[in-house]
């Protein structure tokens, strides 16, 4: 297969775009398309200070690389979850994130959950009702809280995450299956700021996951290849697999599913009303917005964890 731009041997064929590109032209195409998404969805400008949430994976490190190449002012945030999984998962992903930042002379802020909240994610999850079986729910809650706090404290105008189209299509699929109207109303490339909540953007939302992996490989970005040990059996992975089966038979199915949703959303097909509308107020303990009465879920959950830890160790909660 030949590159459509130069006729050299292609490195990747993107059937949904009927486009095959060689290494050189693919590495140029990805930042061009990212820039188009940034402009199309009015994500940010070159005057903005951007905080990129990096996990050490292919998507977030590629996003940071692309923003840096495009000349945006982007710092990184790595949250050390303290997950080992038998192969030092967090340790290795942190090392790769730090090495990436150092190689490009970029600023990376590292937050350790154990240091900030009192315990690593697996230990804390084992002490909670919601995380006893699997720590993913507590992990997501903690990451969202810490990311928002870091963006606010650092004075960043926007928080950027490496969600790709497969992530978005899988979330959309799940939200549609359950007709979670509130989530559907809020799902999009940009989540506008609300009092106490940073603006969130997803500049890679139009790229297939396969394209982002190809970008990382061709660019020579060292990323964590091992999956999070707790991801096995995750519903998101199951939805991604289903959507990829569909894509194999109908190239472009994932893309049209997601883009069709965004068009429908523009016409306010999904709007927050009634019980789906999020009414937020500041948490009396941490000040971050919450829809729950009283303290936010983060404060309530971690208070219980620290209390139980104190009970176990005999120390003060």
């Amino acid at each position, binding site marked *: 297969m030949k590159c459509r731009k130069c006729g050299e041997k292609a490195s990747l064929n993107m059937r949904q775009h009927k486009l095959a590109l060689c290494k050189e032209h693919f590495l140029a195409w990805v930042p061009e398309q990212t820039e188009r998404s940034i402009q199309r969805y009015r994500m940010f400008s070159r005057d903005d200070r951007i905080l990129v949430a990096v996990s050490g994976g292919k998507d977030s490190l590629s996003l940071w690389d692309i923003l840096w190449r495009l000349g945006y002012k982007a710092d990184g945030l790595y949250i050390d979850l303290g997950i080992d999984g038998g192969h030092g998962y967090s340790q290795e992903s942190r090392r790769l994130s730090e090495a990436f930042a150092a190689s490009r002379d970029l600023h990376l802020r590292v937050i350790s959950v154990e240091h900030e909240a009192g315990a690593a994610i697996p230990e804390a999850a084992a002490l909670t009702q919601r995380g006893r079986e699997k720590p993913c729910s507590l992990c997501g809650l903690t990451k969202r809280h810490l990311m928002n706090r870091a963006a606010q404290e650092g004075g960043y105008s926007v928080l950027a995450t490496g969600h790709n189209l497969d992530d978005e299509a899988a979330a959309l699929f799940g939200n549609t299956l359950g007709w979670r109207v509130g989530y559907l109303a809020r799902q999009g490339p940009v989540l506008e700021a609300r009092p106490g909540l940073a603006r969130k953007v997803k500049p890679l939302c139009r790229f297939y996951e396969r394209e982002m992996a190809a970008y990382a490989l061709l660019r020579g970005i060292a990323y964590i290849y091992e999956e999070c040990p707790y991801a096995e059996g995750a519903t998101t992975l199951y939805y991604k697999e289903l959507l990829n089966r569909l894509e*194999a038979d109908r190239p472009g199915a994932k893309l049209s599913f997601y883009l069709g949703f965004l068009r429908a959303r523009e016409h306010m097909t999904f709007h927050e009303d009634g019980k789906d509308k999020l009414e937020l107020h500041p948490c009396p303990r941490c000040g971050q917005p919450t829809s729950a009465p009283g303290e936010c879920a983060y404060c309530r959950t971690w208070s219980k964890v620290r209390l139980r830890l104190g009970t176990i160790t005999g120390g003060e909660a």
Partner: protein
Amino acid sequence: MPVRIRLRNKHYEVRAGMTVRDALRKLEIQPESVIPTREGELITEDEILREGDEIRLVAVISGG
């Protein structure tokens, strides 16, 4: 000499002369979920596998 294909810790063998697309179909691997590489270079699905090829499939799906 067969073609060796590796995906994470799984190893497969297919005969030379078929395309990457056919090999993936035979092994029941979703083409969207992997990137095929040969000697560190990315190859497309129409590439014909040669005697003694060592193909590494890079898994691309992540997230929980």
